[in-house]
């Protein structure tokens, strides 16, 4: 990875609050930011959970719709 690429990566992580950086002289040090990664993934997990439940119900609704159409065609 190039230095520019690295800077860009760190910048994205910093914007997301996942790392914090500090420049002392020519050296920029990174440490874990105020937001922890598991906090982020936990939220996405909850979000996925809600949508998974929703879509599992939608599967049922769709099966019923298909069944009704079949009956109508008979």
């Amino acid at each position, binding site marked *: 990875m190039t230095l520019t690429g690295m800077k860009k990566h760190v910048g994205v992580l910093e*914007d*997301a609050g996942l790392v914090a950086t500090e420049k002392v002289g020519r050296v920029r040090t990174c440490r874990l930011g105020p937001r922890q990664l598991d906090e982020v993934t936990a*939220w*996405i997990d*909850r*979000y*996925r*959970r*809600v*949508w*998974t*439940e*929703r*879509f*599992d*119900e*939608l*599967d*049922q*609704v*769709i*099966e019923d*719709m*298909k069944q009704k*159409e079949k009956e109508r065609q008979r």
Partner: protein
Amino acid sequence: MKYETRVEQTSEREIVITRTFNASARIVFEAWTTGELMRRWWVPKSAGITLLSCEIDARVGGSYRFVFQAEPEPVAFFGRYLEVSPYTRLVWTNGESGEAGQLSTLTFEELGDTTRIVLHELYPSAEALEAGKGAYDGMSETFEQLDAVLAS
């Protein structure tokens, strides 16, 4: 068979949800644009939340309004359809102004006997996305309680 629900945060203000269904795009589209059908799946039974009404007028400029039972008074979710292209694409706002809430873009892609939907939830800012997370916390807590009941 059940398909996987994929959720990705693609930027600090966008979330993308992808899922495939065993039906034509016409059927899946209908399930998203008919109030009587949507009320059967939008709030999963296991969430323990009562949907009092679900009105959808899926035309460009038409609005939708979902009313949930809550204390001390019912809560309404509403918005407007900006684009309605039958069986391919829907765009709607969340909230009256369209500024505070996210913009939802839903596309339907028929692949053989199945339809893949991709839902983009674009928030006006990273802060708005953060604020929007609260709504999901409540719902998933209910699922977790259900898990606990099923496990015991």
